[in-house]
């Protein structure tokens, strides 16, 4: 490629610049496209909501506010966790339609266990309840997922059929466990997993610590990456490209942290917390624009310089991010992951090369079951109750998230971060349209259309890349 002349303004050379930047940074252009689409959607919602009802958002609406983005992240986490597993399943040329019903089954079981089992046996509020409940759910998820996997791998029943059967059967089981009742309330510590409200987050201090750790991690990853490339005589990225990646990555981590740390606790929550923990509330005058609380006479009012708390990262969001990292590591850096992609790319060749594809299938479905259990924990904790309807239709959203994120149904192709972005994109559309009071019929139409459009764009993109 010839270097463009400095100061030249013809479009071809600018395209050359962009291409040179992308080549040097080795960034996934598809991912950049998704991030771009996400930002456009967010800005659009903020502007539109601002027209309807002015707010404090970046463009004068109520979408791009710390509060809404914080809630958006929490709302996304359950689907996001499952989508990371679905990527690997689809990469293996399989499908799991049973995740929604499985979530329902695990959710009601773990709810039943807490309310009717552990609560009466250990005493409500016993500190071991949440630990037992979490372990129970994870083991149950692994078992159910393993069952799916064994049926698919060893009895050679197509995964579509096994999990379609699961979709129906697990919802029946879920109904059978609690007979259509709603089980509530969940254990107080367990509830924190759901991130419902500011108390279920880690606060600004630990959020900043995490942010700095993340920045350190990014720098360390870049340095070790360079060393590895040098060791194996791979071409190195130019230093400026490494710097850009490091700076942008760190800015994203710091920015996200700044965002979640700018979401103040609701005044009523501060009031309750202060009363429970005997924290004095300072005197001050009423100012409805403030996020703090003050004592004015014998009344508690909103004010600017009073008692206030910032929220920080919600626990389910941290769970989803950790799952994302672990799964990425598993997919990119382990033999297990390489086998999965190899099998997905060409099952016969992988088998001939000595990959035990049957065992691999069982493992991947077991992993999916565990991830479904994690989502079941998040969903029940967030709703503070367990019902049959939790998880219903989740399989559709999970598969859609993976596919929007660039996972190919033909197998062999798909990334974890793509699925996470896909989940965030879909939830953004839904939350945004709810914020604008769209009728739910329109929401369904838009989400469906976006799914199909995303796959079409993907086809066009892949065809051009060839």
């Amino acid at each position, binding site marked *: 490629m010839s270097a463009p002349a400095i100061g030249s303004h013809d479009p071809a050379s600018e395209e050359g610049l962009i291409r040179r930047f992308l080549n040097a940074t080795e960034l996934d252009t598809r991912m950049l496209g998704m991030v771009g689409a996400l930002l456009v959607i967010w800005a659009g919602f903020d502007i539109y909501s601002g027209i309807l009802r002015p707010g404090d958002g970046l463009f004068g609406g109520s979408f791009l506010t710390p509060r809404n983005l914080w*809630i958006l992240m929490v709302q996304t986490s359950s689907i996001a966790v499952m989508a990371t597993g679905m990527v690997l399943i689809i990469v293996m040329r399989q499908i799991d339609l049973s995740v929604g019903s499985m979530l329902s089954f695990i959710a009601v079981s773990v709810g039943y266990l807490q309310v009717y089992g552990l609560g009466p046996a250990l005493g409500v509020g016993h500190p071991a309840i949440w630990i037992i409940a979490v372990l129970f759910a994870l083991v149950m998820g692994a078992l159910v997922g393993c069952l799916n996997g064994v049926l698919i791998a060893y009895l050679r029943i197509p995964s579509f059929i096994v999990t379609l059967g699961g979709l129906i059967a697990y919802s029946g089981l879920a109904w059978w466990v609690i007979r259509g009742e709603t089980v509530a309330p969940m254990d107080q510590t367990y509830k924190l997993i759901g991130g419902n409200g500011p108390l279920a987050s880690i606060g600004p201090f630990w959020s900043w610590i995490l942010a700095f750790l993340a920045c350190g991690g990014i720098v360390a990853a870049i340095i070790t990456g360079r060393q590895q490339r040098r060791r194996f005589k791979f071409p190195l990225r130019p230093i400026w490209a490494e710097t850009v990646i490091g700076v942008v990555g760190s800015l994203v981590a710091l920015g996200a942290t700044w965002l979640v740390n700018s979401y103040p606790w609701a005044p009523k929550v501060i009031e309750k917390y202060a009363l429970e923990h005997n924290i004095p509330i300072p005197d001050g005058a009423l100012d409805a624009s403030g996020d703090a609380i003050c004592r004015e006479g014998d009344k508690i009012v909103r004010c600017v310089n009073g008692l206030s708390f910032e929220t920080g990262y919600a626990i389910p969001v941290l769970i989803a991010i950790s799952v994302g990292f672990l799964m990425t590591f598993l997919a990119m850096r382990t033999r297990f992951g390489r086998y999965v992609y190899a099998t997905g790319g060409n099952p016969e060749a992988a088998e001939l090369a000595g990959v035990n594809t049957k065992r691999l299938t069982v493992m991947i479905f077991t992993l999916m079951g565990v991830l479904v259990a994690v989502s079941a924990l998040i969903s029940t904790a967030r709703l503070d109750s367990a019902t049959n309807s939790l998880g*219903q239709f989740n399989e559709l959203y999970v598969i859609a998230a993976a596919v929007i994120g660039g996972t190919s149904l033909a197998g062999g192709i798909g990334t974890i971060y793509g699925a996470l972005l896909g989940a965030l994109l879909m939830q953004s559309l839904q939350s945004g349209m709810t914020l604008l009071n769209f009728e739910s019929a329109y929401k369904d139409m838009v989400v469906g259309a976006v799914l199909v459009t995303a796959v079409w764009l993907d086809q066009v993109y892949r065809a051009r890349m060839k």
Partner: protein
Amino acid sequence: MKTRFLAAAVGALLLGLSPLPAMAAGKTIAVSWKTFQEERWKTDEAAIKAVVEAAGDKFVSTDAQGSAQKQAADIEGLITQKVDVILVVAFDSDAILPSFKAASDAGVKMLSYDVLVEDPNALYVTFDNVGVGRLMAKVIQDAKPEGNYAFIKGDKGDPNATFLFQGITEVLKAALDSGKIKNVCETFTDGWKPDNAQKNMEQCLTSTGNKVDAVVSENDGMASGVVAALDAQGLAGSVPVSGQDGDKAALNRVALGTQTVSVWKDSRALGKAAGEAAVAIAGGADPASLAGVTKFNSGKKGVEVNAILLTPNAITKDTLNEVIDAGWISKAEACAGVKAGAVKACD
């Protein structure tokens, strides 16, 4: 031991194979359920069966398993068996009309139970669904006569969601028109799902900056999502919330004060009323002459039918004893976590 078991097994088999006993004096009353996969219908069946058997009549039931075709075949089978009365919980209230006509032609008396079937010859036994909406709105309006209201409606595809909202707006119309009550959020909830209701409520609180004074939620499941969303903002307990169904978790919330009202339709009362009507009709009574029968024509097609409309109960903190006394929920379940002296029914 082994032989006794065998004998018992053979006996059971013989009993199962033996022809139905001849109906001497008793009539046969049948129920065609749309699906038996929901908890509540079992309660209804027990209530109907008790009334029917106490009157010396015979009770049979069929389960359409959520299929309109299966339900039509079920009813055909019941007509062939020459039952006297069929109570139908229609899966599809239009598709079932030919079956109703065929039954009437064969001299079988028909009742539509809980779900309206617009056949002028059938007696409709149900709770007053518009009344449920009215009752919900009334309790919430009493608790919060003015302010910003959020409306969390049920699934857009379910006519009951619209019936309910009809009753709700009927009560609140004057206050909405005069501006005393402001409708700040109104949204359907896909599949009546609690987690969707939670998301909708979160979005409502975000868009209004927590300025919501009361929430009318069309059922208890969705109320659980609404209360969770309110709880995250420290508002649970100070914002009135409605619901219906008498869910155990919801009744507990009523006792705890985070939900204001759960409108309760006692399915045993409904089963009892329907059972009694069926027994009377089987004995030759004219449906129009039964006690409590009114004319009903608010269906889609406006067909006038005879109807028994039961009034639901509004369960609030003050009337919580009604569900406990009726044995619907145990005191321990209803009052879990309630502080002494807070609720009369719990002390």
